[in-house]
């Protein structure tokens, strides 16, 4: 495999996934927030809540379109750029993606049309049901995507089949109910709730600061603040649960996140609040440590030692020796179906992935060319590979956590002052809410980076290395697609932000009354200012 192509494929996937993930959290949260607003409309019958649902629904629509568009890329990119991965894991990984389409995306997309267009064609209750179905559909989408992702983090419910050279599905329930999928689903969707709540609260704060749309803004602020305060607490709780899971199933990710180079000595093991980790020298500079915190934080225990990176590397070296035997036996079995080779493979099967890791550094990427002389160097490099980039993990994690706690504070103050109806007396909080609008999205992006960079060097943890997973394209192909994505996506984000700011600034007032159209006749391009406000 050409390493340049692998790196470009990774770059493209990271860019498209991070880009897509700017819009997803807002969709996840806004749909339920819209449903809550419409619920109040149906209960109280006050038209202002319908207006709120429609205005925030319009902003939601601007975001939703681009989320759907960029989601298309994700569904197809596994096939276009990760063919070996798709072949090797498709038997397990494809199923949740297909179920997502059948169970969730169809639901969401079919009803979102009715949600926008059906106001005059459905009863109040009917439309409310449609809004809830859209919310449920978008969150079920997240469920199946995260079930698929859970398999990449913690591959349960599947075994390797040497006859078909791939992982095969054995236990549907184990996959769906895997701890990682469960915790990640809740963490991610609730992070979406936080994003949606911050969006509504921030824009409402903007109106309050300008003393515009006050009736509208006060109600929106109240609902968003209450929605957000519980969500932000839940996100922090789930973040803790995920950290513990990483400790249990992905020790390399956890060690990198916390910058632990040497296995800790309980109970005094310190939690490192600040450090500058150096991946090459394998040590931290400028550490600020808080003793006695790490054990209870990560393992929920004072007596457990947390394995450090240097020890994990030594362990990986042993795995790699066994893995090389597994891969060589597998290669032989694939050629002559020799039962003895199969028996050897079965003996070392659990370490096969490490053998593939070593294959990258073998002469000509051929393990049979390993000799006593070159083996130690190959083992060292493969073992070093098993550790993700510590600097990125350490700081990505800390940025995300810092954002999370900041949200709890902002929402808590917002909810408190809103409940006392004195929110307009605290412009500092309004300003903080407004400037905090993009922060949840940034925190979500950090979350993705921590989760997926921390999984490296694997696409499926412990089984398939990333370098093997990519399609065997030429560099030219990759440059073509990368340039295309960058150009298109830049245009999209420019259009999105333009419309979002335009409509958010415009606010809801001139939204309600239907506008008469000059003449009412067919419009032509030649008339300047045609259908001036008809986009409302």
């Amino acid at each position, binding site marked *: 495999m050409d390493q340049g192509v692998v790196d470009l494929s990774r770059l493209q996937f990271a860019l498209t996934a991070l880009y897509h993930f700017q819009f997803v959290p807002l969709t996840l949260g806004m749909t339920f927030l819209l449903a809550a607003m419409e619920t109040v409309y149906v209960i109280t019958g006050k038209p202002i809540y319908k207006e709120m649902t429609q205005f925030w629904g319009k902003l939601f629509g601007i975001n939703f379109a681009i989320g759907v568009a960029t989601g298309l890329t994700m569904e197809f990119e596994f096939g276009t750029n990760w063919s070996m991965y798709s*072949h090797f894991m498709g038997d*397990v990984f494809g199923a949740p993606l297909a179920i997502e389409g059948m169970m969730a995306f169809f639901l969401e997309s*079919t009803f979102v049309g009715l949600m926008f267009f059906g106001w005059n064609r459905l009863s109040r209750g009917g439309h409310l049901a449609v809004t809830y179905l859209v919310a449920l559909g978008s969150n079920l989408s997240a469920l199946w995507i995260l079930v698929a992702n859970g398999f990449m983090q913690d591959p349960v419910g599947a075994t390797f089949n040497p006859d078909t050279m791939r992982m095969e599905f054995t236990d549907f329930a184990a996959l769906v109910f895997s701890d990682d999928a469960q915790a990640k689903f809740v963490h991610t969707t609730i992070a979406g709730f936080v994003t949606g709540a911050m969006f509504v609260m921030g824009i409402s704060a903007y109106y309050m600061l300008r003393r515009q749309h006050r009736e509208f803004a006060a109600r929106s602020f109240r609902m968003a603040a209450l929605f957000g305060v519980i969500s932000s607490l839940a996100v922090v709780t789930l973040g803790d649960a995920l950290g513990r899971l990483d400790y249990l199933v992905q020790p390399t990710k956890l060690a990198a996140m916390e910058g632990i180079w040497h296995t800790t000595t309980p109970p005094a093991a310190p939690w490192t609040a600040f450090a500058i980790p150096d991946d090459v020298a394998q040590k931290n500079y400028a550490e600020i440590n808080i003793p006695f915190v790490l054990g209870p934080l990560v393992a929920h225990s004072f007596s457990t030692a947390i394995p450090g990176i240097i020890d994990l590397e030594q362990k990986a070296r042993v795995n790699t020796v066994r893995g090389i035997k597994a891969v060589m036996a597998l290669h032989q079995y694939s050629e002559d179906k020799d039962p003895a080779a199969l028996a050897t493979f079965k003996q070392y099967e659990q370490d096969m992935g490490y053998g593939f890791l070593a294959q990258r550094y073998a002469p000509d990427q051929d393990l049979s060319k390993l000799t006593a002389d070159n083996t130690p160097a190959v083992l060292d490099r493969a073992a070093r590979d098993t550790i993700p980039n510590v600097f990125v993990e350490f700081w990505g994690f800390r940025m995300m956590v810092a954002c999370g706690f900041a949200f709890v504070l902002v929402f808590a103050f917002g909810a408190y002052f809103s409940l006392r109806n004195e929110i307009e007396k605290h412009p500092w909080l309004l300003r903080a809410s407004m400037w905090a609008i993009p922060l949840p999205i940034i925190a979500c992006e950090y979350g993705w980076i921590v989760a997926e960079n921390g999984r490296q060097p694997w696409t499926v943890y412990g089984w398939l290395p990333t370098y093997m997973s990519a399609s065997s394209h030429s560099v030219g192909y990759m440059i073509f697609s990368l340039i295309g994505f960058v150009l298109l996506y830049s245009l999209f984000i420019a259009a999105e932000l333009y419309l979002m700011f335009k409509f958010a600034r415009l606010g809801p007032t001139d939204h309600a009354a239907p506008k008469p159209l000059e003449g009412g006749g*067919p419009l032509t391009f030649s008339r300047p200012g045609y259908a001036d406000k008809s986009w409302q």
Partner: protein
Amino acid sequence: MELYAILKLVWAGLLGVLLIGLGVMMGMDMGVGTLLRFVGRNDGERRTALNIIGPHWEGNQVWFILGGGAIFAAFPTLYATSFSTFYVVMILLLFSMIMRPVAFEYRSKVPGNAWRETWDWAFLISGALPMIIYGAAFGNVLQGVGFHFDWTAQYHQDESFIWYLLNPFAILCGLLSLALSIQQGGAMLMIRGVEPIYGRARTYASAAGLVAAVLFVLGGVWIQFIKGFVFTGKVDPSMPSTPLGGPAVARQAGAWMDNFHAIPILWVLPILGVVSMVLASISLRANRPALGWWLGALSWIGTIGTAGVAMFPFLMPSTTNPAQSLTVWNATSSAYTLGCMVILAGIFVPIILCYTAWCFSVMRGKVRVEDVVHDDHSY
């Protein structure tokens, strides 16, 4: 026949259903996108055309996504190999597809000729190009594709992408698919549109039906001279799903006709295709757009059914190493996955069809220019 072989057959059938659903539902929206600049001569008319499919395009597009997901789940090796082999073409398809949702949502939100004109061009590209590529993919697969696998089942490409874009048979298939989509989209514009959109759509759609019929017959003649693929070794339908170490395969001119010679009843499919295209064209002319729409759907069944039956059991034959061709027998998931997915599809596909039909019935009725420009929620 063993259970595994039956499951593989069931999924080959479901793959066909999905591809037909994709052609009918997404093709309809694509046709509207392609026709947008031609049926709408001013802004109000164009917005009306967009709002005719406005409430439904999002749901229809999921057929495309589900198509990708289902191929991934049921035919992972096919998904991996075809999407990567056709890389440049697939990326072009993606680029054009991702413009569409954005174009729908953003076009009418800003007044201004330049803004809306730009998005109208985006509709044309994102309507026509995906349909051409969709058809061309069938055209390429029918001729065989240059790829082989190494021992880890990683594919290697043996051909340039330029061939996939520029070979004449693929272009013919692409135009056929484009014509079918225009027919379908035109029928929908007639069902929910009024004059002048109605009349223009009628002209384009009925012409497209006839063009499609001619292209389909032309393709049928052409296929006699194309080298098809045929098994020469012993085939075990329950074989483990791997492209490595399968039975021998030979290439012969006209081999794609073998299934029709062996089972003459299969001729129903191509005949259904041509007859429906012509009848659809006639009924659109006769101002029966709903009938024309359903006949358009039958045209898709005939067309994709014909291609599928001709190739069966091949899915994506290899010209450079025919023994590693991907077939219904060697490119599927494990029996467990296929079984799970059959059960889930059996539950969810009928539900999807029910609520899709309900949405269409809620939003039924004519869309008029004055309604669109007065409505707060329209595109």
